[in-house]
């Protein structure tokens, strides 16, 4: 017998009271989707844990994918046996034979108090069984090479060795949807990732200004969206043609206020798209004080145009920490590709770092964007990205 289960432990999910069932179902369906290309698996969600029955499937790839699913606190490969002393002894012995090392420790837990033998006594029974039937293993309770956990639960007993940490957070889709402003830089994908960690399903919006911005810049954003699907399943990317609006701002507004006005128009468009798609919030990668457009004054001036909640997961983070996360989630190398996006063209030589609301309103008043905004939204193009394992229709697939 080898490991035949993956045992998944919930984090704060387990604390969600009456909604617990909803969260667990969500997690189960996310796990199912992430592993949909392994048809042999069966996945069962219980009140206090979830397990994946491997049915002979190789577990390596499954472990890798479980590491990226939000809502999993930790997980382990497990052998599942009946709540029967002899069967447990047998399985524990087989588990230790798969391990390398010299010293071990048994940690038995008994959430199922109907099982007659208390945990402490179980530790001794199982430890003794291993010592009698193996050579070279000794007990070390403080610093063992291998720790075998025995969890005697209501449905069965699970025997596991290594505890693999999960990503924590909440299952994506359990707390609603947000519209992520995805620019192509380092910050916005990280903001999207952190928002997904709190259970949010993302859609993304990107503003592009061809021919001032290139196909390669668009490609970059598409690649970022694709990369993020690894953590949250499907992502819809809405591409807004922004050339006319940017030219109008450039021609009619004072140069140093151009950036502020541009951001305000982006936010107005985003709010309308969110409303159309019944999305209740907007997420951005703004980090306080990072660049001119992200000063307190600037946020104050830009935020005026919407009363939708704006989620800014990076607002209090340092750049180095943001970069570290972007490297972990594999968006960094995409983000640093050197193609201009709509935020880096038409950049004024001296943008206003402390714009004021009354000034912006005064400069904006004579410029009527109504038609351009309507047109931009009408011409919006939407591309759907599925997690890469599901992208079977990829035209390149047959080449690989």
């Amino acid at each position, binding site marked *: 017998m080898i490991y035949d289960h993956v045992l998944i432990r919930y984090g704060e999910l387990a604390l969600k009271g009456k909604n617990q069932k909803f969260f667990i179902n969500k997690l189960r369906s996310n796990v199912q989707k992430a592993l949909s290309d392994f048809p042999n698996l069966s996945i069962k969600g219980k009140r206090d844990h979830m397990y994946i029955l491997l049915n002979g499937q190789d577990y390596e790839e499954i472990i890798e994918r479980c590491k990226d699913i939000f809502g999993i606190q930790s997980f382990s490969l497990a052998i599942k046996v009946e709540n029967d002393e002899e069967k447990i002894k047998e399985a524990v012995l087989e588990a230790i034979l798969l391990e390398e090392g010299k010293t071990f420790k048994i940690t038995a837990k008994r959430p199922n108090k109907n099982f007659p033998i208390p945990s402490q006594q179980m530790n001794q029974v199982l430890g003794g069984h291993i010592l009698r039937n193996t050579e070279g293993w000794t007990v070390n309770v403080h610093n063992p090479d291998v720790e075998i956990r025995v969890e005697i639960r209501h449905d069965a007993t699970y025997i596991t060795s290594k505890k693999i940490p999960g990503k924590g957070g909440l299952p994506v889709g359990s707390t609603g949807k947000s519209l992520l402003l995805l620019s192509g830089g380092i910050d916005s994908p990280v903001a999207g990732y952190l928002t997904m960690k709190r259970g949010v399903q993302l859609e993304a919006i990107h503003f592009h200004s061809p021919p001032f911005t*290139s*196909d*390669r810049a668009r*490609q970059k954003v598409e*690649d970022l969206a694709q990369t993020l699907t690894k953590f949250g399943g499907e992502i819809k990317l809405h591409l807004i043609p922004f050339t006319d609006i940017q030219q109008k701002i450039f021609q009619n507004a004072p140069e140093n206020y151009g950036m502020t006005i541009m951001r305000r128009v982006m936010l107005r468009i985003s709010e309308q798209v969110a409303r159309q798609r019944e999305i209740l919030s907007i997420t951005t990668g703004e980090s306080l004080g990072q660049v001119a457009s992200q000063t307190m004054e600037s946020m104050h001036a830009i935020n005026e145009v919407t009363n939708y909640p704006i989620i800014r997961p990076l607002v209090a983070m340092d750049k180095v920490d943001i970069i570290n996360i972007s490297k972990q989630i594999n968006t960094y*190398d995409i983000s640093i590709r050197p*193609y201009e996006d709509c935020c880096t063209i038409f950049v004024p030589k001296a943008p206003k770092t402390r714009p004021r609301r009354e000034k912006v309103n005064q400069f904006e008043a004579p410029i009527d964007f109504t038609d351009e905004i309507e047109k931009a939204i009408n011409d919006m193009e939407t591309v759907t990205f599925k997690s890469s394992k599901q992208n079977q229709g990829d035209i*390149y697939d047959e*080449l*690989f």
Partner: protein
Amino acid sequence: MIYLDNSATTKPHIEVLKTYQTVASEYFANPSSIHRLGGEVEKLINKAKEQVASILKVKSSEVFFTSGGTESNNLAIKGIAYRYQNRGKHIITTQIEHPSVLEVCKFLEANGFKVTYLPVNEHGEISLQDLEKALTNETILVTIMHVNNEIGTVQPISDIADMLIQYPKTFFHIDHVQGFGKLPLPYDHKGIDSVTISGHKIHGLKGTGCLIKKESVSLAPLFHGGQQEQGNRPGTENVAGAVSLAKAARLAKESQTNYDQLYRYQANLREVLEQYDQVTINSPKHGAAHILNFSVKGFKPEVLIHAFMDEGIVVSTKSACSSKQNEPSHVLLACGIDQSDASSAVRVSMNLDQKAEDIESFLQTFNNIIRQYENVMG
């Protein structure tokens, strides 16, 4: 035809050829060009990297496409030697490496580096003690092959890597050309810094291959030019070659499970060949399954090769890269095999789809040839 010279090169897989043709004819733009065509081609090359990386469980930024085994070995060895020569000028390798390692080491020796060539035992294995003794404060590189191309010896790579972790100044390069797709290697091991992989040994195309180079190492490039491959390998990318390599690697991985049956074939070959008085088996018992090297007393190897060829069976003498020199094999001499056996070695090398009948035909033909010529040759 029964082809048993797979360690020299393999027949390209039809799917690999199709990929090459499609990419070369339809995705011909330069991946560095900024237009959309360039973007699509860049996507292909990135995807090829990701696929190779995921098969090897390394990062895609650690995959560098090259023209094959010889270039990868040159790039890693010279690259490390020249980049880190200020730390020390000592290199350790073995006596039984492929010429693309040995000759590079000799070249470096002629250019001010010191090289230790570790001896091997009769099975072709180095000893860890010898390696440990050879390591000095000046040692910047250890370069050792995984599977020997002539006799199939498998070196204890994991143990060497474990040991070298304690020598942070010393990089570890592995010539993995004969092992890739056949025997596992812990690519993500911290003690391993670079690994050479060749396409045409795994049913890919000549002129394709890659070097896995960990982020912990930086290289002096062999060529100078553009920023392709992070500047380590300038030159417009061979995109069709790279994608075809990714495909060959995937196909190789998928048929890796067939490898175990080659152990049975080799056992069968050994059992039968050992019954002939003239035959000495040169391959170690616990070596790789796909290579079997043996000598036949009194037979010049060319005669055997030609006689086999007449019967539609393709085998070879030592390594294709050294076989044109009319000299005994340096690998066999290093294993302590005498001059005459070392000069008369024949190599049978199998692929993962080899059939049991192929082996049977080979043995039958061998018997016929021996019986037909033993009086003349003996």
